């Protein structure tokens, strides 16, 4: 579907929505089309959504992912003009305000800045009126592209929580989800959707920012903190497990990031911290992941952590930026995903892995669509792989590879 078709389809949807008495706000990336689907830009949309929710009363929400990138729709009981005022304030005053576009619709038509007597948006490169720069093609596309990506990257790198959020957004906005929750559908999950994940992420990213140096060298403290984050997650999702695996992984990676500079030292730091995890294997009662690792002799995410996440640092991260499909084929073929196992059996897991491996060896990444369909059709989920995907993106961002 082309960008114009996507936009028109969304316009029709907005019209239908606007027939209600609510005011609708669309949040999308203010970026040129070539980078609208970039996870850096999707993260900007999520940040604007997070900010907006703290200033407006929310009634309803929807989201789409297409040629226009991630778009979140928020309905509010505020009047159109009041909503527009708050949106303009965000666009003008927030550090990433220039990277997002907040359009306000009331009764089917959009409310313009001029109706409120507010000046039109300025170009972020030359401070001329943005619409004029667009029209006269004043700036080279590569310069505009680089500006948007750099600004987004800088903002996300400022704190570890934001960087982790970026990883989770990259995962959540994948075009194929292999049974997991995505933007356009909930995969095989009936009890949660995109917004359950957003709610969870909003809590997580602010919590990850609270990790301090004392925790990074002390597994007991780190674990206690992890349990606290988990409790917050369950509270935000009304008891749904959205990111338990991700929390576990991110705690190690963030700690290593804070404690050590080189990749090798980080890997060693995680190995040292994780040596305590070994004790988990003897504890009862077992979580499903532990049960599976014990009963089937599989390589679970716990084993990856025991090995300092070296496979993620050394093999996966360098692959980022190649293709989403290739990265997923690698993860699926190498990780014994206990989430998949829980919904099937070892034979099915091995079948999926050899399928992914075959596509990798033949470099037939287009066929990943069939693998994705298989997960959906057989009600399988790849939640463990998704967590690794998110982690790889987090590390790649921190390493300057995104």
């Amino acid at each position, binding site marked *: 579907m082309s960008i114009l078709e996507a936009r028109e389809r969304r316009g029709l949807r907005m019209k239908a929505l606007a027939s209600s008495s609510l005011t609708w706000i669309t949040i999308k990336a203010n970026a040129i089309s070539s980078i609208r689907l970039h996870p850096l830009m999707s993260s900007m949309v999520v940040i604007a959504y997070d900010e907006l929710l703290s200033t407006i009363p929310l009634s309803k929400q929807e989201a789409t992912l297409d040629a226009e990138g991630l778009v979140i729709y928020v309905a509010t009981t505020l009047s159109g003009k009041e909503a527009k005022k708050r949106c303009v304030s965000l666009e003008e005053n927030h550090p990433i305000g220039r990277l997002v*576009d907040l359009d306000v619709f009331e009764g089917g038509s959009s409310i313009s800045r001029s109706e409120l007597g507010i000046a039109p948006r300025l170009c972020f490169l030359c401070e001329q009126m943005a619409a004029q720069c667009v029209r006269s093609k004043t700036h080279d596309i590569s310069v505009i592209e680089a500006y948007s990506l750099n600004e987004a990257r800088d903002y996300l790198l400022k704190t570890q929580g934001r960087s982790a959020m970026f990883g989770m957004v990259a995962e959540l906005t994948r075009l194929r989800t292999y049974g997991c929750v995505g933007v356009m559908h909930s995969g095989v999950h009936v009890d949660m959707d995109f917004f359950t994940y957003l709610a969870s992420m909003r809590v997580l990213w602010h919590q990850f920012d609270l990790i301090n140096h004392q925790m990074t060298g002390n597994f007991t403290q780190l674990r206690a903190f992890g349990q606290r984050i988990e409790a917050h997650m369950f509270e935000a999702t009304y008891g749904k497990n959205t990111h338990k695996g991700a929390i576990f992984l991110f705690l190690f990676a963030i700690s290593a990031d804070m404690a050590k500079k080189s990749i090798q030292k980080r890997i060693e730091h995680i190995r040292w911290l994780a040596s305590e995890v070994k004790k988990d294997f003897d504890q009862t009662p077992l979580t499903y992941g532990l049960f599976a690792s014990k009963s089937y002799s599989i390589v679970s995410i716990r084993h990856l952590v025991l090995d300092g996440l070296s496979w993620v640092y050394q093999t996966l991260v360098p692959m980022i930026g190649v293709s989403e499909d290739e990265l997923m084929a690698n993860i699926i073929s190498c990780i014994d995903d206990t989430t998949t196992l829980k919904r099937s059996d070892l034979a099915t897991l091995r079948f999926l892995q050899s399928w992914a491996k075959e596509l990798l060896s033949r470099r037939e990444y287009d066929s990943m669509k069939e693998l994705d369909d298989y997960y959906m059709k057989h009600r399988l989920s790849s939640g463990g792989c998704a967590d690794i995907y998110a982690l790889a993106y987090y590390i790649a961002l921190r390493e300057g590879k995104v």
Partner: protein
Amino acid sequence: MIVSKPAVAGTLESNDCYVTVLPNHSSGIQLVIRSIVMQKYGHLIEKTIREVLEEYQIEHVSLTLEDKGALDFTIKARVKTALERSV
């Protein structure tokens, strides 16, 4: 080509435009353009619209275009789609 029924294309989002076409039986071409960059680029937008109308050999139409900062190719595509929907 003859515009025989009302049709629309596009949206009112930033960098897009919303085109409405109506039959205008033997009354020639009537254009209404509203744009956030009207002063500077209004004449170029009109030129783009007229080029499409010429391409489709349309002699009678009432066309309204509400521009939100669309580029020429977007304007062209939206006008074409509206016209194709009006047959």
